[in-house]
């Protein structure tokens, strides 16, 4: 049961990551890309938590905290420069 769920979760996260990467590659504007990379970051965080659950460790906890703390800075910076270059 658990292993089947883990496989399903992994596949879903992989597909979601692929979708986000497609949007990063496709654009069309820098803001779309930055938005999609935000989503990709959230998916990476989810994958780290999945890894922690499957292998029963807490190694990446600090990484998850860091992602939620400073993950927004990149997109804020880009958005700021986009508005400034008017």
């Amino acid at each position, binding site marked *: *049961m*658990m292993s089947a*769920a*883990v496989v*399903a*979760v992994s596949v*879903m*996260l992989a*597909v*979601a*990551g*692929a*979708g*986000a990467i*497609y*949007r990063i590659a496709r*654009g*069309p*504007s*820098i*803001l*779309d890309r*930055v*938005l*999609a990379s*935000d*989503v990709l970051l*959230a*998916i990476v*965080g*989810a994958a780290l*938590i*999945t890894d*922690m*659950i499957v292998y*029963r460790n*807490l190694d990446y*906890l600090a990484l*998850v*905290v860091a992602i*939620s*703390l400073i*993950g*927004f800075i990149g*997109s*804020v910076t*880009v*958005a*700021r420069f*986009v*508005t400034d*270059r*008017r």
Partner: protein
Amino acid sequence: MEETVYDVITAVLMLGGALMSLAAAIGLIRFPDLLSRMHAATKPQVLGLLLFLLALAVEFRSWKLLPVLAVVWIFMLLTAPVSAHMVGRAGYRTKHLRPELLVIDELDDVVERAQRLLREAEEEALEDEDDDPRVDDDPGHSYTGELDDDEMLRARGTGAGEALNSDAQRPGKNPEG
């Protein structure tokens, strides 16, 4: 027996979280413009993360872990709208939206007025200021800042200075035509 119950709860929570990530990806691909995509992008960051953190809490069942997980979610709650607002605002201001998809727009004339005031002030300060939102790397937007031959001819014909200042030379202001 008890173990399997916890396992089932963890599995369901993880599946829900992954579903939210998948929903965000589908939204990113299928929605037609930046601002619609932003709605889809909020989900894995708020609900998806909550479900994954709950799954982690149920799997480990340790009281020490709960405060950290709460901190992770609180920080995500505090920071996610900041980036969403900044990106959305920049997108709106630089006309990354597609006006035909907006049925109601109560901000349009407000921004228009504010930007006109700002532009006038800037133009007073810097006479030859160029205020193009040249942030769009969309290949559909072929504006490069250079004049092509036709435009050069027209510019010479009508008097170069006047033509350079006219709005016809600045497709960035009304990108969709």
